[in-house]
């Protein structure tokens, strides 16, 4: 914020445009658009009745976790519960599953969530299909709330609001909870108002069975620039639902719990996978979004650009510090008349804090203790998550180049 003030003042006088000024305007415009759109967000409240089937693909979940998952789901009495164990045979999971008489258990040797969903679909009988991750625990009324938006026949997919089990446990879990909160309070609500939530997070998503049946062939044979990409099944289902002409929304009153990664290494790996998948889908969906979902397009592309801009700015500052003779870029403003590096750094950081805090007041209002952790969140978002997004984008580009060679082969082999 402080940087913005001095650089913008400099621009007005000398007409030198600084990258940070553009960056600052972009993040505030993003905030404004999202906040304005999400103001009119309301969860659906009318009670409804839909027959429903729950599909739970599972690979090697620890038995204790899976037990509480199944019991949390079973308590809410879905019409049908289908567990699809995929990959190597897992006797303990099978044993647990068979303890419940009302749960149908299947096993497929072929690994992969997509195939598990396909298999589950062939067994599902009911109108609404709910797909659940094998580590996601439902909060009370999660199912009944999740079904409410389907009262609107144009709605094809609905997602829940995600929370982290024990958010106060570690810094990682705090960060994950914060990210979920700002996402569901901000961009998710905004996109939901437009009916075009670009990605219904797969912890728990509900679709109409008719739509899933219709899109299943595409879902199973998706190719990107000629190669098959086994990432972001939830995003793929969302894309195909949107393309089929249905709306996708968030039901913020349907709550589910999920575990945060235990170590930074796992956290980084998870975020890298997500960032690669989401950016790959952004590119793929861009032509469609231009025509049908401008708000989603705006949000997703800004999110893609921001890390690059931010690090462009950081690198230019580093260069500036390393090469002392770039006097041409000296600014003529010094609001508090200080040349003291420490004071200047403090002002820049304070500015960043205030700017960030104001943009996330909605989430802070729900939990004032967050103001203590904001500096950590800002640091993590700028120095951990932004580079992850950049690397994710780079890996995607890399995949495209080698993917066309190696995987073209693999594609034939799979047939």
């Amino acid at each position, binding site marked *: *914020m402080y940087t*913005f*003030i*001095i650089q*913008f*003042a*400099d*621009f*007005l*006088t*000398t*007409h*030198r445009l600084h990258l940070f000024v553009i960056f600052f305007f972009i993040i*505030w415009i993003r*905030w*404004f658009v999202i*906040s*304005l759109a999400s*103001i009119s967000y309301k969860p659906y409240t009318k009670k409804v009745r839909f027959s429903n089937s729950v599909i739970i693909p599972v690979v090697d979940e620890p038995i204790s976790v899976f037990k509480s998952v199944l019991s949390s789901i079973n308590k809410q009495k879905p019409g049908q519960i289908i567990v699809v164990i995929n990959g190597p045979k897992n006797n303990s999971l099978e044993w647990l599953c068979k303890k419940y008489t009302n749960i149908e258990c299947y096993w497929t040797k072929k690994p992969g969530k997509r195939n598990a969903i396909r298999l589950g679909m062939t067994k599902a009988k009911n109108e609404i299909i709910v797909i659940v991750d094998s580590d996601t625990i439902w909060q009370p009324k999660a199912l009944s709330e999740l079904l409410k938006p389907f009262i609107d026949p144009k709605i094809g997919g609905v997602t829940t609001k995600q929370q982290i089990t024990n958010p106060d446990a570690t810094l990682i879990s705090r960060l994950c909870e914060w990210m979920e909160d700002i996402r569901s309070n901000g961009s998710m609500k905004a996109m939901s108002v437009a009916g075009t939530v670009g990605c219904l997070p797969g912890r728990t998503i509900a679709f109409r069975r008719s739509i899933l049946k219709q899109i299943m062939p595409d879902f199973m044979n998706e190719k990107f620039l000629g190669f098959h990409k086994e990432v972001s099944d939830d995003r793929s289902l969302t894309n195909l639902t949107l393309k089929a002409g249905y709306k996708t929304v968030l039901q913020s009153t349907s709550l589910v719990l999920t575990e945060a990664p235990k170590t930074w290494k796992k956290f980084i790996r998870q975020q890298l996978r997500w960032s690669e998948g989401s950016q790959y889908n952004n590119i793929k969906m861009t032509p469609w979004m231009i025509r049908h979902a401008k708000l989603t397009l705006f949000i997703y592309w800004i999110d893609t650009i921001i890390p690059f801009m931010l690090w462009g700015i950081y690198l230019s500052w580093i260069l500036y510090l390393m090469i002392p003779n770039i*006097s*041409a870029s*000296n600014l*003529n*403003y010094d*609001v508090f008349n200080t040349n003291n590096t420490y004071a200047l750094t403090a002002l820049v950081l304070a500015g960043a804090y*205030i700017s960030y805090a*104001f*943009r996330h*007041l*909605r989430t*802070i*209002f*729900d939990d004032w203790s967050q103001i203590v952790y904001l500096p950590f969140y800002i640091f993590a978002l700028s120095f951990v998550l932004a580079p992850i997004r950049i690397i994710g984008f780079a890996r995607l580009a890399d995949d495209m180049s080698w993917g066309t060679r190696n995987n073209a082969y693999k594609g034939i082999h799979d047939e």
Partner: protein
Amino acid sequence: MNSFKKYVSFILPCILFALLINIPPILSFYSQQPTSNIKIIKQKFIDSSDNIPRSGSPLKIGIYLNSEYSPKKVEEKIDSKINIMAWFSKWSEPLANNKISYACENGYVPAITWESWKADTMTADPYPLADIAKGKFDSYLNEQFNLVKNACGRQTVLIRFDHEMHVSNHDLWYPWQNDPANYVKAWQHIVDLSHKINQNVKWIWSPNHGEELIYKYYPGDKWVDYIGVTMNRNMFYANRYMPDFKTFYEESQPYIESFNKPIIISETGSDENSENLDKAKWVKSMFDYADKNPKITAILMLNELITIVNQDNYIADYRIDSSPSALSALKQSLSSINRSEDK
């Protein structure tokens, strides 16, 4: 309660942002005002529109401070205040820097010899006069004038743009030499731009010496505030035989005074290493003469060793304290001429 939170968390940041985007314009506005009124009154500079230049005001003294930041050391050395801080600046570096801010904040008039080239090389000219005239460098120029305005507000700033332009009879030493048509166009263009932004920049048009040839390079009265002239004395040129300043000046006088503009001796220094140049006598003669000629408003003295490239890199010693006798002559001259502003 929830909807209250919702609206407050939208409206508060909007207010913050609205305030925020208003700070820079205010800042930008105030920074263009003179930093302090008291300081400007301290330093009155002669208005070039006066018919009788100097009009009773004392001769102004300037020193080239190319390597130095502040004139304090020089002032201590000569026991006297100086009026003008002079230095050379190439287009490849910013015109306004800490030095200009220092000058304006401390009551000195900055006099910048502003050269449209990049390094001491004639080969690749990144700023051809024709391109300057066509407006190719307008954004650069506007930026520079704005920076000067930021630094100096309403205070006078002297700029001596592309000096010694009329050389054609031997090897050129600046890329802007020997191109009268484009020189005049470029000059007019630059001054027009500067007048739009900052009326307080005054322009010194500064040939090397007086001769018939200089008229072809004169941009016109509207675009020139002062006439400058280089008066460097060393053993390689005819002027080594000039026993005193008067004889030297009078060679150029008919030409440079014919424009009826105030004169600034915009670059002067004397070598003394060899051939009995008698620097002390020369310095004394300069102040004696200039003090009595009301057309001469200021003298800008070089104060460094200067390498004369086309004379086998001979190093001329133009420092004001190159010898004790030269320094004491300068001190004596400065104390004998009238320099009081109050008269």
